[in-house]
């Protein structure tokens, strides 16, 4: 089972434009496992670096999980939209803490600023996850935000990985989202 989805992830990166944008649809049960496999695949190249926007797990928890799974977190800069909703943030060199997942404007500002600060031509943005945005924002607002964000990704010549839970959970939103990306990789089955 694991080898199956690993193979699917590897194949997802074939036949893509120079700067690509992918949507991975995952199921809730093995979301984390597959997320790590995707990260692993993207960060393999020597010059690959990324900005990881976490809406699901606080930075302090996420960094431990990633390091435990041998992800080179030195290649990642984090934007944590969740910690401040629970507790005051601690100063972290590799992480920017935002007030809450509702403020989509601040999220895009943070992404812009982080991306400008990273000196590499092979930069990727990870957004974990699209579905969580919907808990805090209306569908229309998130659709606009994602349309804008995907435009930014293209204009800034970045790569993008958007993670989402199973399509059935947010059908209308998923239909809109599908149009913005180069490829949809369904790992939920």
């Amino acid at each position, binding site marked *: 089972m694991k080898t199956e989805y690993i193979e699917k992830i590897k194949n997802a990166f074939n036949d893509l*434009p*120079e*700067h690509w944008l992918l949507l991975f649809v995952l199921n809730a049960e093995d979301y984390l496992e597959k997320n790590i496999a995707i990260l692993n695949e993207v960060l393999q190249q020597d010059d690959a670096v990324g900005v990881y926007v976490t809406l699901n797990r606080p930075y302090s928890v996420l960094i431990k999980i990633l390091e435990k799974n041998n992800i080179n977190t030195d290649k990642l800069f984090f934007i944590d939209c969740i910690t401040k909703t629970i507790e005051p943030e601690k100063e972290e060199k590799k992480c920017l803490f935002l007030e809450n997942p509702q403020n989509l404007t601040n999220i895009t500002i943070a992404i812009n600023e982080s991306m400008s600060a990273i000196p590499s031509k092979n930069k990727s943005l990870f957004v974990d996850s699209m579905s969580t945005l919907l808990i805090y924002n209306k569908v*229309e607002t998130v*659709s*606009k935000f994602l*349309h*804008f964000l*995907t*435009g*930014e990704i*293209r*204009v800034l010549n970045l790569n993008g990985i958007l993670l989402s839970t199973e399509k059935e959970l947010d*059908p*209308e939103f998923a*239909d*809109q989202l*599908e*149009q*913005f990306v180069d490829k*949809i990789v369904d790992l939920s089955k």
Partner: protein
Amino acid sequence: MIELNNYESILIVEDVKSLRVTVNDILKTLQDKPIIYINLTNTYNSLVSNLKKDGLKINNILFIDCITRLTGDSASDQENVLFIKEPNDLTSLEIAISEFFESIPGEKWLVLYAFSILKIYNKEDIVLRFIQSIFENASASNAKIVILSTQIKNDSLIKKMAHFFEKVVMEME
């Protein structure tokens, strides 16, 4: 592949994967015809790069890019692309389309991809009025229209405008 020349206006509703193939097929088929191409999912630079990779000629196309300026990017001006501020600037889009139609004698085409994104930025009735105005401009100028869209669940907009078109192709999985 639908026989484009048989119809004045065509609405194609498909899943996203098929839609991407269809729009490229349409551009290939219309390679020698003047086209105004409005793509609401991709920037001009990214789009042209993909089209050239697929071996398509682009000198017959006037691209309308509604994304680059939306992100605040001041990409340099190029001959065959018009940058519109954002997808809710339907007035500018309409002006661009009608001016294009009037500037070219004979057969010309409007290809609009992906229509459903207009709903993110505009109310339904505004979008419908916009479509109506495109049809008015097209019929006055002997222009042909192809609109491509994916079907968004719980969205009635496609159904409300389908009757405008001479041919409707709905192939959803």
